[in-house]
């Protein structure tokens, strides 16, 4: 199922992080894996698309496809999406792509990603981009498009909090390299830059909703201070997004499984 079809059928993209690597005991790891499996299957059962992160914030986590394989989790067509960043060895990149193909995961969100001193980094020669100074999402998307042409639907990120000209210049390069859909950073109801973007691009856009009340975490994620007095009731904000961006998809991060998940259908249907 393509992104367009997700939008058409009002299928939520729900972000799910894999367990972190810094566990101290086996029972703790087991518990984290069980919790992941429970959330994963719940989301699939309710007809949503699960989006699995790739070492967000540079914090070492277990790799998405490895966890899916280890736990024997199902991958119904079009219902699983995987983030893929530039902080991998070439061997790992190959392995992840192979796993995605075998599992039937056809949807990838390609991002530059967050590094750390524990994470390796793709070098230009690893992605046939010898002239590039650095491997960003642009080089990675181009490489995947060329090597595995037509086998994946490839998305890129858009950050409305960065200076617009700079961000659109990057977006142009990403589109040139083969981007097929766009996922934004969290939007609180409405954002001028997103409005501008929608006028400029001709591809599906999925808008991220921050489902947590904690704004300082959002500030950390996007790299800019969100004013503390910003009014933010996540479910209300989500309703505003549905209203303001009717032709767009919805990507939910920090979802409350007990308090919010049961009510999603009421908001977008």
């Amino acid at each position, binding site marked *: 199922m393509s992104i367009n079809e997700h939008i058409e059928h009002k299928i939520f993209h729900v972000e799910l992080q894999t367990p972190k690597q810094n566990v101290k005991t086996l029972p703790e790891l087991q518990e984290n894996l069980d919790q992941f499996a429970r959330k994963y299957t719940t989301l699939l059962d309710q007809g949503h698309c699960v989006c699995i992160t790739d070492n967000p*914030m*540079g914090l070492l986590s277990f790799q998405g496809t490895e966890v899916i394989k280890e736990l024997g989790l199902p991958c119904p067509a079009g219902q699983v999406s995987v983030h893929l960043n530039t902080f991998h060895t070439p061997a790992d990149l190959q392995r992840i792509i192979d796993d995605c193909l075998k599992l039937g995961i056809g949807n990838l969100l390609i991002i*530059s990603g967050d590094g750390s001193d524990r994470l390796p980094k793709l070098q230009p020669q690893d992605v046939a981009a010898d002239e590039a100074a650095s491997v960003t999402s642009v*080089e990675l998307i181009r490489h995947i498009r060329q090597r595995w042409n037509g086998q994946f639907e490839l998305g890129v990120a858009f950050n409305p909090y960065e200076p617009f000209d700079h961000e659109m210049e990057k977006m142009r390069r990403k589109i040139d390299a083969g981007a097929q859909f766009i996922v934004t950073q969290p939007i609180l109801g409405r954002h001028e830059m997103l409005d501008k973007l929608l006028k400029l691009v001709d591809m599906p856009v999925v808008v991220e909703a921050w489902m947590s009340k904690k704004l300082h975490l959002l500030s950390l994620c996007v790299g800019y201070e969100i004013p503390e007095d910003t009014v933010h009731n996540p479910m209300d904000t989500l309703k505003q997004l549905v209203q303001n961006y009717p032709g767009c998809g919805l990507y939910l991060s920090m979802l409350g499984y007990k308090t919010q998940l049961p009510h999603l259908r009421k908001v977008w249907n």
Partner: protein
Amino acid sequence: MHTPTDILRQQFKNVWVVAELRHGAVQDVTYELLGAGRRLAASRGCQVWCVVLGHNIKPVAQALIHRGADVVLMVDHQELESFVDEVHARQLQKLIDMHKPEIVLCGATARGRALIPRVAVLVRAGLTADCTGLEIEQGSGLLLQTRPAFGGNILATIKCTDFRPQMATVRPRVMSALQADPSRAGRIIDESFSPDIAGRRMKVLRIIVDTQQTINLADATFIVAGGRGMGGKEGFELLSQFARMVGGAVGASRAAVDAGWIGYSHQVGQTGQTVQPKVYFACGISGQIQHLVGMQSSDLIIAINKDPNTPMMQLADYAVVGDAFEILGDIMEEIRKT
């Protein structure tokens, strides 16, 4: 092995500086340590000896005396020509056993950091590495060694009360060399190489000089960093030029790396590297918190930006309002001229 008694400790005298030679030339850090050594020797009322191990090293003795050595202790032998750690270490151990210095200083260079810790174990001595301060304590006459720890969060002072010699390594450009004084006189002691310490377990096959080697960001004492304001790859070429001129490394904000202007290995910040250089030039960097946490321990921050009110301009010790290209161009010109 016993703790030396007071009587035994009194036998140890003089400040030694172990010279660093590269391809026959005395490195600046040696002169800097002779400067520091003279200061310590004045407090202790003793002499400064400079120890030189190598081959065909006689020519360097006079310069060492002019820069502060009272005695130059030399072991000149083919076996010491290349740096084989265990051979140099055992030779230095023999000299220490023979002449009993109270204090031994050496540059915290690649070679110094390999040699001196080995010697410290062999002679059962205390060693403090990477000292930023050396003083003689009033009353006790002990060497007080100061160094930063935990990424610069803490300054520690270390003493070695019972064991001799007291050993310390110091990084280049921390201490000050004395001006060469050709009227200074000193004497030269030629010790012979002891054949029993010759090594058969390690051999230097080839020496390759590569002055183009880029300086590691984490070790750099001078960093020139660029952000979005540098506009593109050309901006970073300018920064590279400046960095080469001052012997520094190039850093970058995440925005610049994500824009593809420079490689991730140059990224400074929370998802890049943490640095503590002596000076950090921030050119066209606004100073998001994730970047600031990576460089806020820099001793001196000089920010250049057209906007005077960015977080980086507020953090900086010197906030230069202007066009980074113009300012850097003029800085380089000024350095070239003077």
